[in-house]
């Protein structure tokens, strides 16, 4: 039994959730706090991956990071090897898959923090940076944690985008979802069943986290729950 796809997938999911969290919180903060032209357009753009077929997303990503693209060329000059068909490309694919959910949830969470807390922090002289880290983020951490759990489960199971940009190279870029597909193709139903069971258990755990933390709480109740 080859466990490589499981470890690879866990690594990819962990890395992509962390990346999606960092990028997603920044985008969500901008969407929640700044009123600029094109704000809703930006929101639509970052939501789009939820609506588009994975192969289309994979194709776009391939266009952006392929060996012939400017990004691909810069990457190759800097690191000496192409970005596509590597684990890093798989991580990027998973980020694309997971980020929209995180951004949506984080924006809603930021916007639901009672305005008077942020106003209070400002009158007390706190910088916007300090306000974010000490007030807004702690007060919205539960729904964000829930979204991160869901994002982790989603990035664990990405198939289409990963296949397009990272390929299906056994021992190198073959993730769980791809390994399950291969196992079914070659009639290895034991392996397919086992991997499916593992993915299901992880997803179940994620759903538990979502239900535990994601329940809608108003600001004051959230305060109690945190305390």
């Amino acid at each position, binding site marked *: 039994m080859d466990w490589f796809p499981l470890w690879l997938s866990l690594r990819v999911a962990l890395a992509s959730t962390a990346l999606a969290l960092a990028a997603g919180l920044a985008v969500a903060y901008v969407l929640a706090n700044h009123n600029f032209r094109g704000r809703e357009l930006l929101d639509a753009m970052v939501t789009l991956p939820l609506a588009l077929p994975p192969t289309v997303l994979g194709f776009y990503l391939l266009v952006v990071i392929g060996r012939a693209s400017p990004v691909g060329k810069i990457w190759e000059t800097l690191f000496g090897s192409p970005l596509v068909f590597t684990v890093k490309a798989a991580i990027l694919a998973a980020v694309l898959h997971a980020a929209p959910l995180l951004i949506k949830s984080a924006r809603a969470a930021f916007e639901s923090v009672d305005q*008077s807390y942020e106003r209070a922090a400002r009158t007390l002289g*706190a910088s916007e940076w300090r306000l974010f880290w000490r007030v807004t983020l702690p007060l919205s951490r539960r729904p964000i944690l829930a979204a991160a759990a869901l994002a982790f489960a989603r990035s664990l199971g990405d198939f289409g985008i990963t296949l397009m940009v990272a390929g299906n190279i056994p021992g190198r870029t073959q993730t769980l979802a791809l390994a399950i597909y291969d196992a079914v193709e070659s009639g290895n139903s034991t392996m397919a069943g086992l991997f499916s069971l593992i993915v299901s258990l992880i997803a179940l755990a994620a759903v538990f986290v979502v239900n535990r933390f994601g329940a809608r709480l108003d600001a004051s109740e959230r*305060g109690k729950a945190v305390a």
Partner: protein
Amino acid sequence: MLSARIHKSFAGREDASPFTLDIDLEMVEGGNVLFGPSGSGKTLTLDSIAGFVRPDEGRILLFDEILYDSRAGVHLKPQRRHCGYVFQKYALFPHMTLKQNLEFAAGVPKSLEKRRKVNEMIERFRLGEVAGLHPHEVSGGQKQRCSIARALIGEPRILLLDEPSQGLDATLRAELYAVLRQVRAEFETPILLVTHDLEESFELGDELFVIHQGRLVQQGSPKDVLSKPATAEVAELLGHKNVLSAEIVSLDPGRNSSRLKIDDFEMVATYLPGHLIGDHISVFTRPEDLRAWPQAQTRVVKGAGAAGGSSGAGAGGKKDERLGPNQIPAILERIVALPNSLRLEFEGGLTVTQNVPAPQLTAREWVVEFPPESIRVIGR
């Protein structure tokens, strides 16, 4: 001190009618109270001063610093305005202990001096026993004290309070007044408090600003404003329900008296300086200055004052010969229990507060007497 000229308009929308705030305030050292009904624009004024809202036009000056000036394009961030703000529901950060709330307000970097300051505030506002607890674990009074301490710790140039007694019971309210008195005694920070509660205005105000529908309608010491409301509107806002229009029939400075025609009744009042016979004026009386009793018990007094005619206020002419001077008939509409007395509300809006023996409460037709000195003129 603080001077604020603020103009801000909101276009009407489906769920809101158009509103314009247009006021010019000149505060005094000590306690300033912005008094007005809800929707009058007082919180908007406070938020403009604190920097949460940008006015369309005007200028806000706090001591020698310009906080906002539409012409110069100055609009300081709330962080730089040095305004302590006490929010209606305290807005203590729920994920921090009371002490952490104070430490947050003391700012960064954390110095020995700041730690000392936090401890001093904890002591001054009697928070020692609960400093390590979260806001939801402490009493309303403790939350209140902590929020005031938090607003003061950064040594603001002014302390703004947004309806601090809203929704508080009598005990907490008394506690709040005590704390604010303490603040006034121990800190030099001037206070601007927004309220729609009259009691609070008199408790805390050196200067009272009455605002109504986005405009400043009167300014002065609470005592002056109460005894000389500038307009009938102000009188009504101040809770003088008994605002009546009257015509001056005669004036007698020698006997310090005057006669007024109110509806169809003539009443004796004290002399009204600065008015002429035939003037149409508004008068008010405080509900507690009037007397009322059921008509069945009317003491027969030879009718010196009350003239007959059909009655605007109530029961019709047939019993008029039984009314004494300054007495009018009235139909009782509603009785409201107050802590120490009853409020009798009559048809046409006349209100009397007094104690009434229980058996009398079933009566419908009453007599209300206006003692001459109870009749006060609005304005001038």
